[in-house]
């Protein structure tokens, strides 16, 4: 099963390698990892999609929390907003171009570049939506594709903030 984790980390050089190194070292499977700045310039936010049962996810959270550069780790709820971005270079001869554009419109994606033989399509959405478009475009011939990892944010008032110490461990809930 896939789980999404939001991780606030210090914006230092080398932090990403500490986080990614932990995954390979402990044998955890990462499905995707995306990192970027936050509203606070000293803090970066990493969104990690991990594959595993509840024991694995618990271990991942605890091991991440042990890293000194990690400020906060939180599981992102299932009903959260998740987005990926993909750029897809697809073969588009004059004869097929029109069909492709129609398809893209259905997905509310955009054509961002065009020449005689190709289109570049930009799409944002959750993983399933992007995969669905990719499947449709395969028939025309995908020449090149680049896709980001997922980023995710909770809806409503629930926020991932450095609002409490990593200490003050809540024994009841956070430990298996």
């Amino acid at each position: 099963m896939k789980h999404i984790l939001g991780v606030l980390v210090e914006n230092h050089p080398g932090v990403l390698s500490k986080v990614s190194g932990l995954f390979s070292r402990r044998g955890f499977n990462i499905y995707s990892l995306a990192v970027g700045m936050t509203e606070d310039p000293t803090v970066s936010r990493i969104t990690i999609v991990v594959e595993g049962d509840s024991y694995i996810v618990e271990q991942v959270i605890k091991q991440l929390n042990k890293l000194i550069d990690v400020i906060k780790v939180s599981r992102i709820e299932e009903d959260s907003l998740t987005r990926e971005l993909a750029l897809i270079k697809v073969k588009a001869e004059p004869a097929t171009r029109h069909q492709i554009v129609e398809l893209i419109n259905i997905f509310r994606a955009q054509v961002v570049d065009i020449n005689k033989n190709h289109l570049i399509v930009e799409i944002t959405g959750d993983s399933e939506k992007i995969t669905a478009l990719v499947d449709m475009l395969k028939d025309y011939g995908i020449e090149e594709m680049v896709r980001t990892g997922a980023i995710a944010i909770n809806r409503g008032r629930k926020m991932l903030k450095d609002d409490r110490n990593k200490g003050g461990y809540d024994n009841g809930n956070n430990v298996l």
Partner: protein
Amino acid sequence: MKMTGAEAVVRALELEGVDIIFGYPGGAVTHIYDALGRSSIHHVLVRNEQAAAHGASGYARATGKVGVCISTSGPGATNMITGIATAYMDSIPIVAITGQVPLSMVGRDVFQEADITGATEPFTKYSYLVRNPEDLPRIFKEAFHIASTGRPGPVLIDIPKDIAMATLDFKYPDEVNLRGYKPTYMGHPGQIKRMIKAIEESRRPLICVGGGAVSSGATEEIMELAERIKAPVASTLMGIGAFPGDHHLSLGFLGQHGVYAANRAVEEADLLILLGARMGDRATGKTEDFAQKAKVIHIDIDPAEIGKNIGVNIPIVGDIKTTLGELLKKDIERNDWGWLSRVREWKQVHEGVGDCREGLNPMEIIKTLSDMVPENTILVTDVGQHQIWAGRYYKTRRPRTFLTSGGLGTMGYGLPAALGAKLGCRDKEVVLLIGDGGLQMNLAELATLVQERAPVKIMILNNGYLGMVREIQEKIHGGRYYQTRMEGNPDFVKLADAYGIKGFRVESQEKIVWGIKKLLSWNGPIIGEFVIDPMANVIPIQGGKEDEAHIRGIG
């Protein structure tokens, strides 16, 4: 105050109360060495950088203070890795300083460049590559804080040569502020209540202490708890010393190499109280079979250890001394209903090392040693059969007096760690128990002992084999002894003489007591070689259940 980066390093060490540093100089650290030479800190020149890290580790284990080691860039730094990893696996606080090529050259594969922060990433609690000389005071303050608090561990500071040469305005911070690092010391009150209830309901409680109980300094609290709730106490290898080995409630060392009484008690207990014991594979064997009848309480300062290896019913994140102190304020007593008398019977079961016809019996040597040494003696072991024999047959009476490489199992650890322990505790007797294989792994450090006039008492149990592997070959490879016979061993008595160390050999049973007396009475480094039966085993072949477990364990 204006000073150079190198001077700032030394000033920071002085402000942290460092009085001894283990190291080996080289091109990238000459400026730091120049500043060190003008300070009051005593530098111990080892013969290989690995020994610098082991020395700092032995010092830290014996004293409870942070050990410090230093090496140059490149090979100096990579040589230290084994010592750093050894300390990491046993949660020992050390600060390792490495030189680095100038910052402007980093990444260009210049002479003696190695990415040491990258290479030690899996073996350090935290590491720094200093990029700005002004950061040095803060980094040192943080490094000592991180190494010594929470679950202790090694911290590495990599200092490029140009940073050491630059000038800065030195101001040492009073406190650290790390928003991502705030260890929890006090266990949750609700969990403590649940723990009390579980204790009151139990009929066969068992306490198991690990390395965390030693580093927490919780011996008094653990003794009070055990006595008040009438619970026997078993120990992991790293926990030895956290509870006095001669106490009537002590069961000794548990696990695949452990003693019968401890393992039997784990099987039968209905409540298992783990105190700073991560229950590694060597302590549990197959986790499905481990403590099947018991409810498990686990107190540990590292939340990631709770529930990692075995299932836990009552998890308590916190420092053992602090949390037990709180628990003992409550009205908690338990009467014994015959559990202790059953446990006492198990303690009577005789276990040995097999018939010893070809040489001395190592169990007898270690038991004799245990009876003859002063109570505060620090026993340092290396890794292998002798280490397990020491765990089983030596009665450690005080915390921080049984030093061993438990987690990583690093052969070659013993000699430099014993040196570090002795330099940290000159008032205590330090005995190094070591095999002929392990001694040769860092043999060169004999010179460091002599140079430091460190009266470490070295007891070689010489069986002419890599005994632990030989035992595996005997039991599961049909007795095909391959590459475990140590041919070409030196004459250790003559070798001692070459270093100017007193040396002697014991080959007969009648001379065991004489030999140990000689070791203990000699005022200086001394080597006593005890020639033991090469076929003596950790667990003799007797076809029992424990034997199978043992074979599984070492295989």
